[in-house]
């Protein structure tokens, strides 16, 4: 995915400059607003793909900013950044109208992955597809079945959901925490590499015996499913 337009609302100039630069280096356009009011004004005037909003902002705090935007029917997806990072703060943030929540400090790759997923959702919000296809891998959500090259792959229910999530975001980086959040619905950080073990099992079922590997490990970020032959 290229050329997203992102608004970063963050009062710390250094953190903001870092984010803007990093988004630009990833091929996106990023604007910066140093406080809540300016962020609100920019978000209403311009059309952005995703807003990245710090929770604690001068003049207008992050949650109020999001609430005001939602009242004005500005439905741009929002990633909330927060130094608080407790279970309750996440609930509050999402309740205020945020779409995703990332506790500080975060890895930029994590933020980028989430922003890209949100942006994609904004541009392809159509009714969820019933089948996903990546190369010769096919997943039928209604029949709860997956086939590769026409051959049925036997999957455990959780493996099915894991593959479903990966394929839904085919071509996008999906981080380990995103998998834990969306496939298991937990927001904590397991001490051990449990997610890696699950992915490698899935990979064994999906990719083993095939010349083309579909599930890729993105170093320092997470995983991506894509048809590398194309």
């Amino acid at each position, binding site marked *: 995915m290229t050329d997203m337009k992102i608004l970063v609302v963050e009062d710390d100039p250094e953190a903001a400059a870092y984010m803007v630069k990093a988004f630009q280096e990833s091929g996106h356009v990023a604007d910066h607003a140093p406080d809540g009011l300016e962020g609100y004004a920019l978000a209403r005037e311009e059309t952005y793909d995703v807003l990245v909003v710090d929770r604690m902002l001068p003049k207008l705090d992050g949650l109020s900013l999001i609430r005001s935007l939602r009242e004005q029917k500005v439905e741009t997806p929002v990633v909330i950044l927060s130094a608080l990072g407790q279970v*309750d703060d996440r609930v509050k943030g999402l309740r205020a109208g945020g779409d995703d929540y990332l506790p500080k400090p975060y890895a930029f790759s994590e933020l980028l992955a989430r922003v890209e997923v949100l942006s994609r959702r904004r541009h392809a919000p159509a009714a969820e597809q019933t089948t996903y296809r990546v190369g010769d891998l096919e997943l039928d959500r209604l029949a709860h079945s997956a086939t590769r090259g026409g051959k049925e792959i036997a999957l455990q229910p959780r493996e099915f959901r894991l593959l479903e999530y990966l394929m839904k975001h085919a071509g996008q980086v999906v981080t380990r925490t995103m998998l834990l959040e969306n496939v298991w619905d937990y927001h*904590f950080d397991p001490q051990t590499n449990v997610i890696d073990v699950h992915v490698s099992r899935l990979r064994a079922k999906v990719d083993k015996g095939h010349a083309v590997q579909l599930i890729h490990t993105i170093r*320092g970020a997470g995983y991506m499913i894509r048809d590398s032959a194309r």
Partner: protein
Amino acid sequence: MTALGKLVRATAFKLTLAYLVVFVVMAGCVLAYVTQSARELLLEQTRSTIAAETSGLAEQYRLGGVRRLVHVVERRTRLPGASLYLLTTFTGERLAGNVGELPAGVLDEQATRVIEYRRDDRHEDRQINGRALVQVYVLPGGFRLLVGRDLEEQERLRAVMWRAAGISLAFITILGCIGGWFITRRVLKRVEDISDTAQTIMGGDLAGRLPVTGAGDELDRLAMHLNAMLERIGELMNGLKEVSDNIAHDLKTPLTRLRNHAEEALRSSRTPDEYAAALGAVIEESDNLIKVFNALLMIARLEAGGEPQDSMAEFDAADVARSVVELYEPLAEDAGMTVSVDMPAHLPMYGSRELLGQALANLLDNAFKYAIPSDWAASSQPPALCISAARAGAGVEITVSDNGPGIPEDSRHHVVERFVRLEGSRSRPGFGLGLSLVSAVARLHGGRLRIEDNHPGLRAILELPGKGASA
């Protein structure tokens, strides 16, 4: 504050004073009542004396007419301590008696009453002003006979009684004040001792203890309880110090490593790959730091009861337990550990699903870390993990048990403390915060974490009482 000021302000003194006032008022009431009753009794006696005398004189008149009456009156007035007499004609002309002047109209009224009068004292030839109780009797033929008793003696008695009452009240007041002063000084001294010691303790001498006299009174009991409190505070302070020492150690170690990696890269890296590897190591170390920091914050917040109502809801504990087990199952399989699950289909409870999930993940994490000996293939028993959950009263109890080396009994209560890592586990990854967090989660739900022997192995029991206890 001056010594006197202290004394006057002391509770004991104020109490004594209040009691003194109450007592003096009561004593005053009693004395006034006694005096009044005595006076009324005397007056009553006088009244009956007058009545008797009047009827006696009337009898004399009936027997011998006015002449005899005059004679009897004359004779009686001469007796010492005589009553008052006055006999007049119906026109008011004086016939006999020892009463000098009378207020006008006294003779026209027959009721017994107190009047002012002037007395003729023939012996000393002078007139005395006085008050008297008199009765006027109209004799047949219009003569008026006045009989009365002087009240001087009674007035004197009354004065004596009032003086006695006043003096006793004064004595009571003075004695009460002195007693109150002594009691106050005694109590004040004890309280002063206690507050002086408290001052030195506040000044930093945490080893100081309040004096206990051994009298077993309420001040002793207070001092003993305060001492117990000081003991507890001392323990907590020590615990806190230990924790901050541990925090210092466990945060400084990764910080040092972080710095070392950066320095190393600056000093000796040549190729971009070397730089990339060094930066990767730096990021990894900082991620570790962030994890420790998050865990610490979370525990602190949970212990402050800070994870509040927004994330609390009804959820199925069995569902959470199964999903966490399922999350870790592949890991267990890879490690050669068998995992068994024993729980009912549903275990609804009220609490934080997220936190319970994290607590269970920590327990499983620990089991993988510590219950699988590196040489288990050589031992006869393959590692096994059992997760069971059951309803316990209104709440839920979840047990994670393994057959690993377990934890020696004397260290079991220790492992839930922050940063405690037992001998032999320091080399393994981790920060020593896992069980602290589990314990904090249990407490947030009104329960606790129990660690027991599984013969062999370790059994961690998460007690999560129902709604009532967590509210």
